[in-house]
């Protein structure tokens, strides 16, 4: 067993970070989408990254299936993969763009920004 330091983190073996929200800056200009998207030209989308290992924290809002899968994985990693770190809550953003008829359109696109990550 690795001893915890005063911040509750483990010394020794390189540990993978737990499932959490990480930065993901999307630049529509770099994607080449600035020929039809008027605004915004970039935004913070975030992404989910990290491991879902035993014991799963409650803030990750695991499904019952994820709890079982994580338990199975902790007992035998070769038989079952860990559950997946994925977005569990997303929010929309407003986009102003030019449609195929050259009309200017405002649209609220759902699920564009990761608000919360969890294990599923």
């Amino acid at each position, binding site marked *: 067993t690795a001893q915890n330091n005063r911040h509750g983190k483990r010394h020794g073996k390189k540990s993978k970070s737990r499932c959490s929200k990480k930065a*993901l800056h999307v630049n529509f200009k*770099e*994607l*080449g*989408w*600035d*020929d*039809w998207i*008027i*605004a*915004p030209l970039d935004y913070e989308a975030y992404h989910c990254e990290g491991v879902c290992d035993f014991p799963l924290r409650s803030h990750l809002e695991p499904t019952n299936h994820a709890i079982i899968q994580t338990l199975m994985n902790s007992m035998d990693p070769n038989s079952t993969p860990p559950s997946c770190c994925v977005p569990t809550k997303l*929010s*929309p*953003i*407003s986009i*102003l*763009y*030019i*449609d*195929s*008829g*050259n*009309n*200017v*359109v*405002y*649209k*609220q*696109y*759902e*699920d564009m920004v990761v608000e919360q990550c969890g294990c599923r």
Partner: protein
Amino acid sequence: SQSAAIISSSGPKRSKGTRNPHDGQRSSKFLKEILASSPSLSRREDFRNAVVPHDYMISIYRTYSAAEKLGLNASFFRSSKSANTITSFVDRGKDDLLHSPLRRQTYLFDVSTLSDKEELVGAELRIFRKAPGDFLMSPPGLYNIHLLSCRSEKLLDSRSLDVQDSQKPGWEVLDVWGMFKNRHHTTQGNQLCLQLKGTFGQSDSETDLRHLGFGRNGRPQQEKAILVVYTRSKKRENLFNEMKEKIKSRGSRRSEEEEGSLQFKARRRRR
């Protein structure tokens, strides 16, 4: 670019699973189409410059995106009519007969991109009224503007104007939602046609719309009338649908251009 790399590399591998074996190929093919269709920077700028968004659309975007950042849902705003898509169509009508009085003005909109799958929740016509320079030509008093459907001449909305009082230019907003309720009866093909007329006081005689500030000549793009349509999509839209539409329209434009050039060559050969 990160997501693009993920799609193209994992596409064929994923096809080994239970998913449709064509999914990966289709997405990588689509990705190739996207990359191939990306025009050069100068062409992109030309395209962007050709479409000038009206201030009204920019203000809608600014208001709702600011509200989103504060955690408010844009659909709570009364002006949005609980819509999540607001499309602006620019007027294609023209005023001819330069020297004769402009009794009626026809507003034409190409609404072919409106999807039947989306629920229409509101529509309005926004017409920019210039400060009429020659308002002295009109007798003082109250004028009325009436908006009619071209086909049935059914009155859609009307508004009173005091030309002497309202010297400031501004936008007149007329409700055309009534016309959209029976859209298939009112559109001719993909064209939506509206007619504006002005009357003086209680009389039925139609006045010259130029004297009221509605003349179209010399108007910049920003001052052209717009039809604003509010829709609500039931299913979750994905951005790739927009990209697909763009590719399709570029493809048809390209084939039209090619066809035009072939016809020109044939004509030259005949000559």
